[in-house]
């Protein structure tokens, strides 16, 4: 039973060389959070510093994945700056971000367009 998927990274050349969009869908549990971490670390290693994680199709995200996102923000800080934005308008997912305080570490956008617009402004 695979209850999740990880899409291909999307590189948006017109946004500048350091913006990458990563897409995950389904239920992000401890079966998938290590893969999510590897994917985020690879994007950072490739030079990306403004990361957008599109969780539009995610209905469930566990504490190990929350830990991965918090760790990613810390990693970007260590490397001298950058940002992680998350796309979700799933009520429960957003509330889990609030309970864990992750909403203080990442910006949450309701749509990918909103996240891209914010990334453009930041530029």
């Amino acid at each position: 039973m695979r209850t999740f998927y990880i899409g291909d990274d999307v590189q948006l050349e017109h946004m500048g060389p350091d913006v990458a969009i990563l897409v995950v869908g389904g239920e992000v549990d401890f079966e998938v959070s290590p893969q999510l971490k590897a994917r985020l670390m690879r994007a950072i290693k490739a030079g990306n510093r403004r990361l957008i994680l599109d969780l539009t199709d995610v209905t469930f995200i566990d504490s190990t994945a929350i830990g991965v996102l918090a760790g990613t923000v810390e990693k970007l800080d260590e490397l001298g700056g950058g940002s992680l934005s998350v796309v979700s308008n799933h009520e429960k997912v957003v509330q889990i971000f609030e309970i864990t305080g992750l909403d203080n570490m990442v910006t949450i956008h309701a749509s990918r367009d909103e996240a891209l617009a914010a990334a453009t402004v930041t530029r």
Partner: protein
Amino acid sequence: MRAFQDTATHAASELHVLARRSELGVARKYAEDVAAAFGLDSDGRYEFVYAVNEAVTNAIRHGASDEEDMIHMSIAADAERLTFCVRDRGTFVMPEVDADESSPGGRGLALMASLVDEVDLHIDPGGTTVRLTKLRAASPSVLETAQAQAG
């Protein structure tokens, strides 16, 4: 490996799975079914399943010594309370000091506490047992409070 002694109310049922990440979806499905049979509403079911997933994740991640170990789940319910019990036979461990790995943890227990009405963590030489209880007439959970404030 399910044993429903009373399929109508799920008053007593058990599920035993190998300590593998791939069983997490199975555990969530079991918790969802049990919560629905007990009559929790959609918010209550989500919270219950979420808390169960955290407890089973801990049992697999920290409690089990390898993937051949078993994780034991069982249910107890009466008119007022639905309790999900997760048991492993491992040793309660120190959190990892993940030097540069840096995926800061420690949120599981507090999440469980936010999402169900009672959490009981019992540690003895035989292993770790977590009991998660939802009351039928529950005080508003954190999620519901957040919703009320947002709305």
